């Protein structure tokens, strides 16, 4: 059986054009973009071209983009950099209950350094109320960080309204858009944010490259101090091969975005209907309307996620779960708990993500195998027997 990948969010397959561009770059043996000789100049031109393509993807100006190694670095840079730059103004940071760990952990680090933090709660669909952010603002608030779309349940936040509040109060606003950039249209000017994180492996680009949009005039300490690359904003010799790949992925993604979204919505509908028709006792997580088109989070009652993933893996189908056992930390997903899922249901949650190459046949086969898997595991479950 052909392998079916329904865990795109962990890593997208590279577009053929991206692979070619990277292979050609490897063969070329570019120099270091910071060198003053010809070898370096050629490399610098490649980076410049890639930067322009990436900037177009989010309607930014190229000099507002820096390249990082991943979404996590972008988030760490934005949060620590913005907080430290404004430390004399205040030490209060606002975030939400459902951020990714690469936002929550830097904020935890800030706490150990004497910062105060407020985490805004979300409703049952995972949405933040702009009013709650407003209420949380204090005189010493220096940073607000709210993600654009959640990577576990797909809910999209009212960023434009939240950013407007931040602008009025003159507070730096960061948006973790790692799950959104390359999937849905993002216009940084329309959103009105100061900082925006993204990563190439979410839109058919290579892992190991990400980016941070830094609005002109935003105060920000570097995360990586060093050789002055990226216009003194991020030290370190650039991942040229990866950046070239990211540039190519950005260009193609922008061109194809509309047709991709149509396809993704069709797949989502087929999956949703398939789940409802074939499996009882399920819960869809996330907002029915404000939601990523390429993600479904499904809680399947009475059974546990890792065992579902293993059984599907036996049939060459890859999906992801947010169960405690699978997370290695033995704690359930903070996102699912924040939206009100109880522990048992949170344990049986699958996160299904797909892309432009996912076919209807893939979905049908997945649904067929999933139904068998659920039946088998439920027969084994003490919770199902109790019901």
């Amino acid at each position, binding site marked *: 059986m052909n392998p079916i990948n329904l865990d795109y969010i962990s890593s997208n397959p590279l577009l053929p054009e991206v692979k070619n561009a990277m292979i050609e770059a490897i063969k070329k043996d570019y120099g270091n973009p910071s060198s003053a000789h010809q070898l370096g100049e050629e490399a610098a031109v490649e980076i410049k071209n890639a930067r322009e393509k990436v900037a177009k993807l989010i309607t930014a100006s190229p000099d507002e983009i820096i390249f990082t190694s991943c979404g996590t670095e972008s988030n760490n840079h934005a949060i620590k950099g913005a907080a430290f730059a404004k430390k004399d103004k205040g030490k209060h940071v606002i975030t939400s209950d459902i951020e990714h760990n690469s936002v929550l952990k830097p904020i935890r680090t800030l706490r150990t350094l004497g910062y105060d933090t407020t985490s805004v709660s979300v409703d049952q669909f995972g949405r933040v109320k702009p009013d709650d952010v407003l209420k949380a603002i204090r005189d010493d608030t220096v940073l607000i960080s709210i993600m654009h779309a959640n990577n576990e349940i797909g809910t999209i936040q009212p960023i434009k309204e939240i950013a407007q509040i931040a602008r009025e109060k003159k507070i730096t606003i960061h948006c973790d858009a790692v799950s959104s950039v390359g999937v849905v249209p993002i216009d940084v000017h329309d959103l009105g944010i100061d900082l925006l994180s993204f990563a190439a492996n979410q839109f058919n680009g290579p892992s190991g490259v990400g980016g941070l949009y830094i609005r002109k005039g935003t105060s920000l300490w570097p995360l990586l101090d060093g050789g002055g690359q990226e216009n003194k904003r991020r030290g370190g010799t650039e991942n040229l091969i990866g950046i070239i790949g990211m540039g190519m992925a950005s260009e193609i993604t922008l061109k194809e975005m509309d047709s991709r979204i149509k396809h993704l919505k069709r797949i989502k509908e087929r999956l949703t209907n398939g789940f409802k028709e074939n499996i009882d006792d399920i819960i869809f997580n996330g907002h029915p309307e404000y939601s990523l088109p390429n993600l479904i989070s499904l809680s399947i009652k*009475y*059974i*546990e*996620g*890792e*065992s579902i993933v*293993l*059984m599907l893996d*036996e049939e060459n189908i890859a999906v992801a779960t947010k*169960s*405690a*056992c*699978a997370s*290695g*930390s*033995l*704690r*359930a997903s*903070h996102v699912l*708990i924040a939206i009100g899922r*109880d*522990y*048992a249901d949170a*344990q049986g949650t699958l996160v299904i993500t797909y892309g432009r190459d996912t076919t209807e046949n893939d979905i049908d086969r997945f649904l067929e195998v999933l139904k068998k898997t659920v039946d088998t595991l439920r*027969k*084994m*479950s*003490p*919770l199902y*027997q109790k019901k």
Partner: protein
Amino acid sequence: MYSKTVMDHFKNPRNVGEIQGADGVGEVGNPICGDMMKITIKVANDSIKDIKFLTFGCGAAIAVSSMVTEMAKGKTLDEAKKISKESVAQALEDLPMNKLHCSNLGADALHMAIKDYENHKAGKVKEQQDTTEGYHCYTEEASGRCPYCDSEMHTGEKACALCGRKIEIKLSM
């Protein structure tokens, strides 16, 4: 991640089900840490004549339940009491570090079922089993953090100091 033996027991679990009118029932675990096991036994001549399991849990949990019931079936009660989390893990050709607590649960469920049978035989009232909400088991790795707000907790604490939620942390390794 898992050994061949674990995968075999996961894909082809032995003794799935529930014995009606069982002589002993052992229920352990809870949904908070994601593993629950129920073992039922039929005893004759001080031996485990039949044994079945129901499990809500990951691949390791299912494999452990299957292995534990296979190891215990047909054994005398004394022999079955000697089955430990180590012997189960060994029989499965080892489990990854963060799954060792699953093997603990398997052995616990078996011993609880045996104890339940012995209590019945002695005319004792059935012991209250600890499967209620709020019981969170942790391993050294997870280091006893509140599953709701992630602040540190200590063994024996009945409620989280920070968020106030009722929870009991017990060392499971």
